[in-house]
């Protein structure tokens, strides 16, 4: 009973915090709300007319939505790079960052689920996918695995921080014996969500571009670069807009993680390029299309040739300690790395899988305005959720939010 009362008071207090803030904060939230509403409007058009309002066709049947989904799974998985050292290795540096990281994971997962639903032809029969009520093709379909691991990870990432914050809210210490097992589990889980998502594509013998043993590991490497890069950027923003103190040491440590992951990612990219272009086979055509275009069709060229130089530049800059320790350079690197991996793991991965088609047909894909609108709306939703979570967490951690007995 008492717990319930505390919980009620927590909800009330957090509602209070998230509705109060500086002018900039209100402006930010208003902007997000506006984008979300615009996205919802676009989605309502899609519901009305079907997926024909998107750029997808029978030839390229997955596009912007699934690209973003794939990328965001990676962002969600990255939170674990912070969880592990903090909870398990008792590394104090990461402690403030970890709640932010987990909030980011929750927001990313919500976006993932929203993208999957946006991509569905029949959202009204989604219940067919609920285990027990519908028919769940487990374990044959990798998509069912993905549904399980994503929701499981979402659950873990909500409960662990919630437990810790709930204790802190009452002015008590969180018990290690309670959250450590959860934290360890979530470490394995994070790897699982990413591998399973990679297997989704990797397991299709029909698409040689994806059917490649390196896909899973490369997913992991790029995720562990892009995710923490985003966390660094977010921490930088939080640091300058709130009183929440994040030490330089913490950011530098996360930067180290980003650097190593980006280096591994680059090595794998080289290995992939070697395989595709040294002895090109019939199966290298998708890669040719991606990097050089085929038959004069070259819609992806600007994208991939933005991504590759950004990726290389960021990795090289980060490799030098001097440059990495300069925060201006670091933030710049994190930003371009994030953009580069978004292109590479999204557009650069999903779309060429379908081009050329099973019989060599080259039909290009371009997202439509409505598709972009829905996508922006979902990103705004993610930012909105994250802002709410972060604001509450920071309030509690700073001691501003406390349970009054």
């Amino acid at each position, binding site marked *: 009973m008492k717990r319930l009362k505390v919980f009620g008071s927590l909800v009330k207090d957090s509602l209070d915090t998230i509705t109060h803030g500086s002018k900039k904060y209100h402006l930010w939230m208003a902007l997000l709300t506006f984008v979300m509403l615009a996205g*919802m*409007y676009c989605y*309502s*058009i899609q*519901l*009305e*007319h*079907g*997926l*024909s309002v*998107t750029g*997808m*066709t*029978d030839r390229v*049947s*997955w596009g912007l939505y699934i690209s973003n989904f794939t990328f965001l799974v990676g962002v969600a998985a990255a939170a674990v790079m912070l969880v592990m050292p903090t909870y398990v290795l008792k590394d104090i540096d990461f402690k403030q960052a970890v709640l932010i990281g987990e909030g980011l994971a929750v927001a990313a997962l919500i976006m993932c689920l929203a993208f*999957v639903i946006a*991509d*569905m*032809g*029949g*959202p*009204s*029969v*989604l*219940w*067919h*996918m*609920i285990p*027990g*009520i*519908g*028919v*769940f*093709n487990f374990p*044959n*379909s*990798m*998509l*069912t695995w993905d*549904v399980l691991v994503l929701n499981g990870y979402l659950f873990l990432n909500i409960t662990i921080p919630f437990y810790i914050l709930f204790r802190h809210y009452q002015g008590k210490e969180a018990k290690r014996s309670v959250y450590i097992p959860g934290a360890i589990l979530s470490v394995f889980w994070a790897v699982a969500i990413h591998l399973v998502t990679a297997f*989704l*594509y990797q*397991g*299709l*013998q*029909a*698409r040689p571009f994806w059917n490649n043993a390196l896909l899973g590991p490369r997913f992991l490497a790029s995720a562990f670069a892009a995710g923490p890069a985003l966390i660094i950027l977010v921490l930088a923003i939080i640091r300058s807009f709130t009183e929440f103190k994040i030490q330089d040491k913490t950011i530098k440590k996360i930067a180290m993680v980003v650097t190593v992951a980006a280096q591994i990612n680059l090595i794998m990219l080289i290995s992939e390029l070697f395989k595709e272009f040294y002895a090109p086979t019939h199966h290298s055509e998708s890669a040719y299309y991606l990097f050089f275009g085929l038959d004069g069709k070259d819609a992806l060229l600007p994208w991939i040739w933005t991504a590759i130089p950004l990726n290389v530049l960021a990795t090289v800059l980060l490799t030098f300690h001097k440059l990495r320790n300069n925060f201006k350079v670091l933030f710049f690197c994190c930003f371009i790395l994030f953009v580069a991996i978004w292109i590479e793991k999204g557009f650069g991965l999903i779309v060429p*899988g*379908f081009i*050329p*088609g*099973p*019989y*060599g*047909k080259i039909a290009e894909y371009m997202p439509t305005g409505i598709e972009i609108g829905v996508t922006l709306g979902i990103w705004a939703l993610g930012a909105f959720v994250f802002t709410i979570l972060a604001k509450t967490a920071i309030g509690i951690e700073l001691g501003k939010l406390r349970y009054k007995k």
Partner: protein
Amino acid sequence: MSNNNKKWFSLNLGRKEKTSSGSCSCGKTSGGCGSSSDSHHMTDEAFNEAAIHASIGEERTKDGFEQVFDVKMDRRSAFKKLTASLLIGAGAVSTSCSVISGDESKEKAQIDWEEQFKGNYKLMTDKEKEGTVDRLVRSYQLRTGKNISMSSKNAEEDVLFGYAFNISKCQGYMDCVNACVEENNQDRNSQMQYIRIHEMKDGKGFNFNEADDNYYHEVPAEGHFYMGTQCFHCDNPPCVEVCPVQATWREDDGLVVVDYDWCVGCRYCMAACPYDGRRFNWSKPEVPEAEINHNQHYLGNRMRKKGVMEKCTFCVQRSRAGKNPACVEACPTGARIFGNLLDPDSTIRWVLENKKVFRLKEDLGTEPKFWYFMD
């Protein structure tokens, strides 16, 4: 069941032998025969109860039923629809209880409700299958005043359908394509076609990359030959494995079918198909009332809705009634041969035994039941 039972050539690449079909008496060479009533199975009532219980609050608009029956109804504004989607359950109930509305609309609402929460066709008993078919027929009648006949005929024993395509004979007339569209009530707006005819240059071999599957000129064009593709009804179909909700499956007579009402439209099967065999309803399919083929099968050419997958079913409504698929019948050159692979006297068996046949992308281990040969 050992592989020696196979009546045709097979690489057996990547093929998992499904042991569960060991006691099967129907002589099928691949798994899955009669094993559809597995532990997932629920009774109708239990299913409905569970579904209703858990689905309140599920997004559902009544417009889904407009989609099902391909009949125009008054349009609601998009936003209203969004909110309405949350209230579908209540909406359906209130319609069915309303005093003002007549018996017919009550019946409609009743049918809509039952159709919304029905189970997966694959797991239905024969009685349940009949039930849903009756509801769909009645609903069509209520909405358009026209009668259709819809079959729920199951696979027959000792039947395994196969197809052979004579490359020497095909002249690229595309009569098969047109017959298919008309027979199977495909969307006319997007010009959906299950069959693609690839026009290839003589002397270049089977070079699909340089082939044209969208030609508009007089055929046969000088120096070209033609090759048709469609769903090959793989015996080890990757599209079936990946479907998260088992909305698509291999029937016992080898047909790979889709339950249009169970498909959630994720398009994973489309990505998994190596043969470009699947088509998606990107918008609401439209067929002029006068052109609708009223002789339908639940798994075949009944009306689809937007956002679901469909594909060639070897014209299940015809093939299970002992007829040839529409494409076979329409072909003026006799390039297309269809029949029962388990019948030693069938033409298809004669072709497989006497011609040098091959299949596409055999290295993928999908075991298509679609062979090519030359005279």
